[in-house]
């Protein structure tokens, strides 16, 4: 009995590994085709603009809400800690580093993974199960060039200003809390921010924007294209897209910081 159990477990494991590597291969080819479609950007510029509105302009409220709340929270908590060491005047410096390097881009990435990624997954998944993607192929249109490339280009363009906005809003709310909660003069707060920021801090933060754009767009679109099994299948593929892209955003956030900070 134990031998049979181990054998069947081994078989299942092999099958799952095979399926995993097959999916990886398909994802790789899907991504290559999305990048190879970039020359068609002129043909699909209207789609790029539409997607830029969806992932850029329409995402401003959620990015602002998350940035403002995390900036305010950071100012309160870090301020309390610094007070114990009599270093409250360093609040601007510590908040700025955390927001610009890490939390600004990370929170924006997670919010966009939920908002833009879920929209991609659900929309493309619904198109897949209703055979609209097959219809595109059947009538001679490349669905990756038409549906995925504009999303990717739009995300690559819009994630940078969204990161800047997230950083700005986070620091403004931190400054507000520093003044009204910790009674730190705004001049002291901002004086601790600007003169001490170096190029490396911005490179770490802003390099994450295109990395997150690629991860979120390709993972969510691939899952949408892979949707099977009716409306429940669309739900499954959308959730999978959000979970995987959020996980990858967290991992990429760590590695981008590590690589840039170690090499600059």
């Amino acid at each position, binding site marked *: 009995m134990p031998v049979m159990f181990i054998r069947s477990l081994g078989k299942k494991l092999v099958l799952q590994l095979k399926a995993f590597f097959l999916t990886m291969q398909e994802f790789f080819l899907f991504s290559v085709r999305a990048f190879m479609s970039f020359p068609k950007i002129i043909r699909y510029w209207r789609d790029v603009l539409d997607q830029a509105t969806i992932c850029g302009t329409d995402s401003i409220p959620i990015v602002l809400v998350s940035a403002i709340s995390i900036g305010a929270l950071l100012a309160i908590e870090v301020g309390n800690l610094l007070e114990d060491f009599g270093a409250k005047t360093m609040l601007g410096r510590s908040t700025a580093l955390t927001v610009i390097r890490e939390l600004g881009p990370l929170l924006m990435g997670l919010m966009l993974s939920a908002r833009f990624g879920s929209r991609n997954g659900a929309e493309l998944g619904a198109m897949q199960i209703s055979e*609209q993607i097959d*219809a595109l192929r059947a009538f*001679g249109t490349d669905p990756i060039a038409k549906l995925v490339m504009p999303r990717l280009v739009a995300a690559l363009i819009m994630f940078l200003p969204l990161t800047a906005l997230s950083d700005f809003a986070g620091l403004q709310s931190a400054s507000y809390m520093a003044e009204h909660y910790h009674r730190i003069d705004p001049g002291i707060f901002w004086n601790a921010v600007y003169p001490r920021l170096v190029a490396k801090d911005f490179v770490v933060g802003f390099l994450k924007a295109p990395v997150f754009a690629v991860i979120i767009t390709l993972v969510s679109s691939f899952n949408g294209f892979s949707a099977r099994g009716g409306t429940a299948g669309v739900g499954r593929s959308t959730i999978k897209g959000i979970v995987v892209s959020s996980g990858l955003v967290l991992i990429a956030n760590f590695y981008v910081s590590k690589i840039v900070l170690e090499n600059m």
Partner: protein
Amino acid sequence: MIELRKVGLKYGDKEILNNVSLTVQDNTIKAILGPSGVGKSTILKLMLGLIKPNNGQVLVDGTDITNMNETSLYKIRRKMGMVFQGNALFDSLTISQNLGFFLRENMKLPEEEISRRVAEQIQFAGLEGYEEQLPESLSGGMRRRVAIGRALIFKPHMILFDEPTAGLDPVSSKKILSLISSLRHNNNLGAVIVTHIIDDVFNVADSVAVLYQGEIIFDDVTEKLHNATHPFIRSILSDKILEL
């Protein structure tokens, strides 16, 4: 002309098609009859190169498309129009936009020519007054007619229908079948119709292939179907609709 030569297809361990050979001549209507889930729609997708067979060949106008890459296939696919079972209309576009979508996408035609062709299909499908409606506001029969119009607007040589009357009421079914019949007479079009409704075959098809357990068990002119001796065909002739 579309030709399948000894085509075999498997999904995982499940054999869908086994050694399937059939030919669809230009300007004729060929029906592929079989129970649900037997691989009829798969044959249409093979003809368009949307899926690739495990073995055998698919030829369109003498060109082997079996291992053709996607870019080359787009040129071949433009010779054919496809009407999907669920219509596959773009739900965020109006009827006019749906009809003109692929003309704008793939053909460098002036906007006046596109508008003229769209108006022609609106009239052909009897959808005057619905041009600016979204597909969701139309009945099943009307949506099917839009899908047919969209397939015809390219002026293809061959049109592929996946279950053209499935899910429609008898009146709408009759309208769709007469529309299909009129295609050959008015437009010199060939057609492949995949169906599980035997009356559709007798109403419009010149020839019929019967698909059963992944194999073609009958392939001849429609009239000869009555004389077929295979027990499955005898049973479907008496039941009329296949629900196996």
